């Protein structure tokens, strides 16, 4: 391996230590710009039905929201009716004199126009800097309209993308009323949101819901993936909270456990057999449904036995080079590493950005605590200025790294061209969804089969040239 191109090579634990100590945070100001706090807060809020997310800012902030969250993701893909992306359209005059009066009127107007069950004021950079007191306005406005009005300080500069999610989930807790009863064998699924990042497709949720139903577990609310305000009011009446991704639900799960005493099933993403079984038992056991869950697992396992056998035979003794680059986040990469390990491969996770490790510190620590500590390689291209240069360099580095391992297999997406079989785990191909649960095992086995049986078929010169220029190999 060419050490000139390696920025880090070690274990996840060692990387975590370097990130914690500040050694591995990129110094280039211009590199790697994930979403701001406002965006991620919006995704969570927009996952509540009949809500008006009222953006207190200029019209640029709702751009992504109206085009991609509301129109493309919600209306076109998720079957959601057209919902408002309301905005106070702050102008220069408001910036100078303040926009609180306008905001109060806007809340009243939003209620009159849209008849929502909930209005959430989202502040952005402008309103945050000029000091508009959105929380006081929300309290005042709530007296004048017929629904709850909440405010979220979500200025883009005010935190990273993670803080947006977490603050929004925390805000949602205000809607949860003291329990009047306990809904037996019922759970909430935490950590969802309706955003343009397709890391949580309906198919994965459908698979989880299918398996839970088989066991006899009911779902009160998917928070916030299309839940109603009414479901949120009753959210404290469930017996257990769970999440399909430990990371996204973690904060809300911990808070609900701490504040309301509702236990939270801490399990990772259900990729592969072991994680799926662990996920289902993690939910079913505290509800007293362990026997039923084991029966479902046994039945489902029979269905996928040929696939499990194939995955073991196909991956045993291989080096699984894992890269999640299209929606870069370490949690999915680590879930895939666990799955690869389960089927006998040696996982090597490549190019998880230290920034994303920093943002997910609690979850990473938890995952390490479960015993997963894979080999990690970060290459220098990851830290270079400019998306093309970075992308081209990381491709060249990936190809070089793969060549140094015996019997490698690449788990990533088809935008990479390493000299080994490529398992196309893109989230952008509905032909092989879901990836979660037992149906996911079938799909992943099919993808591995495609990769191995057709490894000698030519790769696209066209797409390679498009991504990396025609000067590449």
């Amino acid at each position, binding site marked *: 391996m060419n050490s000139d191109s390696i920025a880090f090579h070690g274990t996840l634990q060692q990387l975590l230590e370097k990130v914690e100590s500040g050694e591995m945070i990129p110094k*280039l100001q*211009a590199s790697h710009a*994930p979403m701001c706090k406002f965006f991620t807060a919006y995704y969570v809020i927009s996952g509540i039905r009949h809500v008006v997310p009222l953006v207190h800012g200029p019209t*640029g902030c709702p751009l992504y929201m109206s085009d991609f969250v509301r129109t493309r993701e919600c209306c076109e893909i998720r079957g959601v009716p057209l919902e408002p992306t309301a905005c106070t359209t702050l102008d220069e005059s408001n*910036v100078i004199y303040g926009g609180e009066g306008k905001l109060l009127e806007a809340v009243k107007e939003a209620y009159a126009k849209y008849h929502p069950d909930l209005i959430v004021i989202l502040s952005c950079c402008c309103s945050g800097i000029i000091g508009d007191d959105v929380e006081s306005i929300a309290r005042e406005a709530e007296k004048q309209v017929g629904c709850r009005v909440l405010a979220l300080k979500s200025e*883009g500069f005010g935190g990273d993308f993670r803080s947006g999610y977490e603050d929004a989930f925390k805000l949602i807790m205000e809607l949860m009323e003291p329990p009047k009863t306990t809904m037996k064998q019922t759970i909430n699924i935490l950590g969802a949101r309706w955003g343009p990042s397709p890391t949580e497709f309906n198919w994965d949720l459908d698979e989880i819901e299918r398996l839970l139903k088989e066991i006899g577990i009911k779902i009160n609310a998917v928070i916030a993936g299309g839940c109603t305000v009414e479901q949120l009011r009753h959210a404290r009446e469930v017996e257990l909270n769970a999440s399909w991704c430990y990371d996204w639900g973690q904060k809300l799960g911990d808070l609900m456990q701490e504040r309301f005493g509702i236990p939270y099933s801490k399990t990772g993403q259900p990729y592969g057999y072991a994680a799926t079984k662990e996920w289902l038992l993690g939910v079913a056991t505290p509800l007293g449904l362990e026997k039923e869950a084991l029966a479902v697992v046994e039945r489902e396992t029979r269905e996928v036995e040929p696939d499990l056998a194939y995955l073991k035979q196909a991956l045993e003794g291989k080096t699984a080079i894992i890269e999640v680059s299209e929606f870069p986040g370490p949690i999915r990469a680590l879930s895939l590493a666990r799955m690869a390990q389960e089927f006998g491969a040696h996982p090597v996770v490549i190019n998880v950005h230290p920034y994303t490790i920093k943002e997910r510190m609690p979850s990473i620590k938890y995952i390490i605590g479960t015993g997963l500590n894979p080999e990690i390689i970060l290459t220098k291209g990851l830290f270079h200025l400019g998306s093309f240069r970075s992308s081209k360099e990381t491709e060249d580095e990936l190809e070089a790294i793969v060549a140094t391992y015996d019997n490698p297999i690449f788990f990533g997406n088809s935008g990479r061209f390493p000299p080994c079989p490529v398992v196309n785990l893109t989230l952008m191909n509905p032909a092989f969804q879901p990836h979660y649960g037992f149906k996911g095992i079938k799909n992943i086995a099919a993808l591995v089969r495609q990769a191995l049986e057709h490894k000698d078929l030519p790769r696209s010169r066209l797409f390679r040239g498009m991504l990396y220029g025609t000067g590449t190999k």
Partner: protein
Amino acid sequence: MEPGQSKPAGEAGVPAPDKCTDPYLRCAFNGAAQTALGVAGSALLAHSPQGCDYLVNNAFASQECDYMETMTLCTKLCVDEIVHGGEDVLARTIREAKDLPISALFVISSCGPEIVGDDITAVCGELQPEVKFRLVPIPCPGFRGSQYDGIDIALDVMLKRLVKAGTQKVPGSVCLVAPHANANPTWVADLDWVKQVLSRMGIPVVATLTHRTPLAEIENVASAEASILLSHDAGQKAVDYLSATYGIEQVCTGIPLPIGMTNTKRWLSALGERFGAEKTAESMVAEGERMVTATCRRKWPMARFLYRTPAAIVADATVGIPLVRFVTEEMEMTPELVCLYTSQRPARDLLAGELKSLGLRPRVVFGTDVYQTKKNLAEIRPRVIFGSTIERHASEGLGASYVVEVVRMMRQFRMINREYFGYTGILNLFECVQNEWTMAWRSKEKRYEAKW
């Protein structure tokens, strides 16, 4: 209501509608980014928190930039820079970019740094000697207006900072202004059509403001004799500035852009008249009309069946105003609602003139937002809507048979750019209607299952 007048603001029980809007248009920062990214061989540095970088990405796509050629950077401002100022971070980021092989770096500031008083002009001035490329600061926070205001602001900066005075005029030449202020999602094809027309008429194009425009072209824009504004939404200020400062005369004024037979004929004729190319214009009109007619005879557009079908047009002024005549004359439909994203006086006057000339009295809403559009669609109940994916969903349950997505499409995608301008543009619009017509006829469910 008189033609060209807007619907009275507000309704019974609803407060004045300017406090809570659901806008179609993006902010000034986005418009400035669209304009800067139209300069070839340059890079853009957003002096902003990282969220604003997504507005840059949107502009990048709109200008069809190639990520192998054009780089976008962001200072990713956080609380520290908002409290203590972000000028140091800006300077550091410019220094990081100093080896880029570019002719200009456009530095655009967003709301946060503008409110806290970062002086990007001073920082750029200070660092200019350290870098080989031009540093062009464009203070353009989102709160300064819509994306169209941003286009005007960025054009103003470019013209005042980059244009060289005293250049020799190129006889019979033009510069093209604001081609990107156009809601045709593949507006580049409209620009290409204009350039082909000009080439055939022998009219040299000195500069395009902006699309894949080398910096040298912008510097040289004063050598143009005339300007052509390619938008009814933005760019008029730039055209006026060019006229006042460099004596560049605006041509093709007071007529809609060339969408549809009549508009195209008028536009070509005006151009031919100004540049002494009347004969060429006449033959282009004759050839074009013959081609469209012959093509329709061979393809039989289903648009012909929409005679006197009540229609709504929801678009920007650039596409929306010319579409009124096209829908009325070529497709023989009855526009009963026209909702335009913008409300500038020239656009109002132009539409009023068109409606009067056609004898139409539709309801007109200027500066519409999604709420106003939906309410008006519910009240007017048109059978056909020319608009965007938003109107497709906004009109659910309102009885519209066809929603023809001609602007801001989310679902339909074009790999090949298609113009609305000119004669092929007519066929492209017919094709949009045809596909929607076909979809409306497609069975949504099977009446029984086959046995095999």
